[in-house]
């Protein structure tokens, strides 16, 4: 089953990747096993986001760049604001990478 490797770029994904890289460099872990761990991370992260998270966010901003390639949308926003139930954040520049949710369920 294919997974979205998208979440490996997040903080938790990068921490895991770094940890696995260190262990493979040490020889503690084989590369194949490290890849298996990453694939499992993809699955667990997707499931965790679906089941564990309940919040809703609205995004507004000026669209500077848009790109759709290989079923992946990439937006670059300028002066964006993110409104949460609790809080609001504003950033000067943000990149949004979104994969097609329909691909997973196929």
């Amino acid at each position, binding site marked *: 089953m294919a997974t979205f490797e998208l979440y490996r770029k997040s*903080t*938790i994904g990068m921490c895991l990747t770094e940890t696995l890289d260190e262990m493979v460099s040490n020889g503690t872990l084989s590369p194949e096993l490290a890849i298996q761990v990453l694939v499992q991370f993809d699955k667990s992260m997707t499931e965790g986001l679906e089941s564990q998270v309940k*919040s809703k966010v609205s995004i507004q901003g000026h669209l500077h760049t848009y790109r759709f390639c290989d079923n992946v949308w990439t937006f670059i926003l300028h002066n964006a604001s993110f409104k949460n139930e609790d809080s609001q954040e504003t950033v000067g520049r943000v990149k949004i990478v979104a994969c097609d949710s329909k691909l997973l369920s196929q």
Partner: protein
Amino acid sequence: MASSATSAVYIHVIEDVISKVRDEFINNGGPDETVLSELQRIWEMKMIQAGVICGSIDRSSGKKQPTPGGPITPVHDLNVPYEGTEEYETPTADMLFPPTPLQTPVPTPLPGSTDGSMYNIPTGSSDYPTPVNDNGGNTDVKGGRPSPYMQSPSPWPNQRTPLSVDVNVAYVEGRDEVDRGTSHQPLTQDFFMTSSGKRKREDFATQYQNGGYIPQQDGAGDASSEVAKAEGSNGSHFLGRHDSATAAKSKILAHLARSSSKIPQLDGPIPDPYDDMLSTPNIYNYQGVVNEDYNVVNTPAPNDLQAATPAPVAQNDTVDDDDDEPLNEDDDDDDLDDVDQGEELNTQHLVLAQFDKVTRTKSKWKCTLKDGIMRINNKDILFNKATGEFEF
């Protein structure tokens, strides 16, 4: 600081991943449960350091990491002073020269940096005037010149203080036997003494000869190899074109080229002297030590001290090669990487999600996203659904 909600989700994901891969670790002949625990420990520690999960974690394994900033690297446990990571200079030097036992007592006092500077000044001042006096007494200008060099690489002689004393002795006693490193001192000094007379250079050249070979300093010589002769003449011819060098310079160069075949080379590949002359503006290249010349120019003190001591010569040659080239290469790489990628990936705020729908009406874009992780303003925010309205 991470919110408790995101922290809880992350911990849940970590636990889920670890439990799912436990089978792989144990059953299929993979590494131990201990490796798996180590993986979990390090992963969680990195996340705590990144500030995305809270420090207090209820752990089933029972292993608690008390200090989030605990050092992971057990590799460099050689030297006590490595703990003092603020001292950028001393631990680096220690790590580079671990095997020599002479060094271990020296850097143990961390205020050794100040002690080192105390050692540094007398060492520097005693090193340089020695060749100066021997070479016919250029006094003040030469003595003054190298002192800036000595003080800039001040950390290096810290651990070399016992050796530096040897250097002075070795240099005085057996100049011919001492490696080319020490003989570089007059060479490098000479580079900057453009106004000094020709005689000084010729005197230096005289000193380089090992085994009592008396160089010919004028005219064409009965050189043993015609190749050297040709190279010498080519080199001098090149010099004649290149600048208004004096005849002495061309003679010295010709003589050096001729003598290049006579002097045994102690390390490194033998570069073609003619190519060296072409490629380098400084004409006083010495065969086999082309690279080290420039290193000595930049950091005269450490190379001199290292090369003069007979025991670590072999080490230091390799260490110098390892130091110089990777250092130079890495500087450029880091700069480029920071410029190109740092802005895009590291410092940029990022949202990773899945999209359900993306539509556009004229210049108004609307999208619905789901199951996303946002890294904004150094915070992690998770969402189940998101709606976006962007104006293009």
